[in-house]
């Protein structure tokens, strides 16, 4: 932290270096992390106040047994899709670093991401018909839909961002092995959204 990065030759208007962009993205993701922390903390406060800690006897959640169960199996498959999309994105980035286009990997990532959003939409619709929704099922429904909604929105934005990278690469081949900051930053974002999902999946579906 002691010496500065600028040199006398640094032009003042050439845009941030890839390393600087990455740094900025990490700072931004920290605040995204706080957003989800706030939501998750709220979830736990509500749940603990209603039924007690998960390890206490009789802390069944949801407390009302007539509420529909979450489709754990389907969502596990969906989780596999999302997790593998992080890998395919990574392989795409590695391909670009090796001087290849990485287009196939990116397309696969978009497909997996879009599948995740699609399956989640199906799951929402299913739960809606079973009687669980934002305004049904009390705090159970409230927290489930708001939290997964926020996350789903992040995945959706991520899919759009990857598509944007894909199109740029397809049309202009703008990502070179040395310089592909947009791709690297979207990748960071995508991995972040992925990790958040793993937390949410464990907290909302399993515990």
């Amino acid at each position, binding site marked *: *932290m002691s010496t500065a990065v600028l040199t006398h030759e640094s032009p003042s208007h050439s845009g*941030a270096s890839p390393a600087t962009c990455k740094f900025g993205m990490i700072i931004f993701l920290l605040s*995204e992390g*706080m957003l989800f922390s706030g939501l998750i903390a709220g979830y736990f406060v509500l749940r603990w106040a209603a039924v007690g800690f998960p390890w206490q006897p009789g802390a069944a959640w949801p407390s009302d047994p007539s509420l529909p169960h979450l489709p754990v199996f389907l969502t596990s498959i969906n989780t596999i899709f999302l997790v593998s999309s992080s890998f395919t994105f990574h392989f795409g980035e590695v391909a670009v670093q090796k001087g290849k286009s990485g287009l196939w990997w990116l397309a696969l990532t978009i497909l997996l991401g879009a599948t995740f959003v699609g399956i989640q939409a199906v799951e929402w619709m299913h739960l809606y018909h079973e009687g669980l929704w934002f305004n049904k099922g009390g705090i159970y429904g409230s927290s489930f839909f708001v939290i997964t909604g926020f996350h789903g929105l992040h995945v959706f934005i991520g899919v759009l961002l990857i598509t944007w990278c894909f199109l740029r690469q397809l049309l202009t081949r703008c990502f070179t092995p040395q310089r592909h900051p947009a791709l690297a930053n979207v990748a960071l974002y995508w991995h972040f959204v992925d990790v958040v999902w793993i937390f949410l999946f464990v907290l909302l579906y399993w515990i």
Partner: protein
Amino acid sequence: MISTTTDSPFADQNGHSHARESFFRKYLWTYDHKMIGLQYFWTALFFLFIGGALALAVRYQLAMPGSVVPVIGRFLPQTIAVDGAIIPGGYNMLVTMHATIMVFFVVMPILIGAFGNFLIPLQIGAGDMAFPLLNELSYWLYVVSGFVILGAFFAPGGAPGTGWTAYAPLSAVASYNGTQVGQSLWGIAIFINGLSSIAGATNYVTTIVNLRAPGMSMFRMPLTVWSLFVTAILLIFAVPVLSAAAAMLFADLNLGTSFFKPAEGGQPLLWQHLFWFFGHPEVYIMILPAMGLTSEIIPVFSRKPIFGYKAMVYAMMAIGGLGFVVWGHHMFVSGMNLTLSAAFSLSTMVIAVPSAIKTFNWLGTVWRGSLEFTTPMCFALAFVSMFVIGGLSGIFMASTPVDLFVHHTYFIVAHIHYVLFGGSIFSVFAAIYFWFPKMFGRMLNESLGKLHFLLTFIFFNLTFFPMHNLGLGGMMRRIADPMVYQHLRQLQPLNQICTIGAMGLGLTMFVFLWNVIYSLRKGPKAPANPWHANTLEWTVPSPPGHGNFEKTPTVYHGAYEYSVPGIVEDYLPQNVPAPEHARLESH
């Protein structure tokens, strides 16, 4: 001895001249951090006048309950005032909108948006922020959130009336507050405003860490930059939590969720926890930059190095860190566990220690200096003394047994205003008088400035000091008519004194406004370094040209080398190497 003192702003490094930039590209959609700073500056000043007008309406109602408000009354919507006389529900809307506007649309944008943007790149020797596009985006998000919050006035049912703290369940149940749309717009405005803050803060942290000029080590940075750095980190960690809470509130109001509705299993206390987890860091977000600006001004007009530079930096870090573990002091009467409440009392009192360190260091800087009582210096010294009063009342409230009695009284209102007006706003004025020459290339008028200072200082204390007595006398916050309470009738004269002070403050603002307008057109041209200060922004012309520095400067020492033994001049800019024999404060 100053390296670049050319008078004409030079063309930027890309070679093309910007002489014929369109109005749109120059003033509305610009990537230049200085112009973005000015955009924030004017927008926040506009909101300052709106927020001030609302406050005057509040004060008028408290002094003369139920009578027609002159001038302002006519502009208030039907939901607030009927035929110019404020109705009780409308009174709640006024206080809510006043505080929301002042916190999110005046103090934060002017301290962080305006001065942060203008000063950070200049003071660290960079050509611009790391992400200029993001910077402009953050300004426009702020504007959009401003339209949303002002739109709440015209919503069916009226503006939100649940206080800037929007306590649930009042805020979360439409049938309780009667302002479903207004309260939802409040949530949306807070959310968008939060996006703007996060975008800005990301930019600041990245810029400060990555774009410092050669030689500008972290411990050579001016304290303003340090304060904005710590503030930006607080923003990154605190604001998203409020965004989450605002989203939940919005869902409760519009999607039928039950986060904060006790009747459906929700928890009103959850709102308080989420709000104050943000809210307390927020108050430091509003005071740290003010402390940073003050720390710049006091040494310049004392012609002495800042006392205890590193202690100042560590104190800011301590304040920032501790600020995250004290939020419970706003909730002592919420029925919280007494052991927990004792812990929050303790952590709150501990925070007073770094605050006191800063105060003593300012005093140490002034001590035996050759003081120049310019307008910025007057405001900066007033900042220190008013902050001490506000900090001291804070310590009273930090102790649970005392707070049980003063919570939700005017004592709190007095505290808030001593730290936020006497603190943050006084330092904003100090900073405006100090950096106006750099921002606009003209000097502000000193005599008008002194008048502005004197009147502000007198009327400020006239307005807010009696509120301590009102609070201890039992006057609650957010009541539309004190006269309906038997025990408050005897205090009515104090309420009227406060209102006289407030009107004086309002009128005084026009002295300031006149000074700004007059000096922009007729003020004497500002030299590059009118105050003989050391930081890098004073080494370039006023106002600085595109790209700031002709050549990235080299920094040789800290920012506070005033009256260095062994140097003829009593100042030594950061880009000027010290002669061999000089005894410097910094390394």
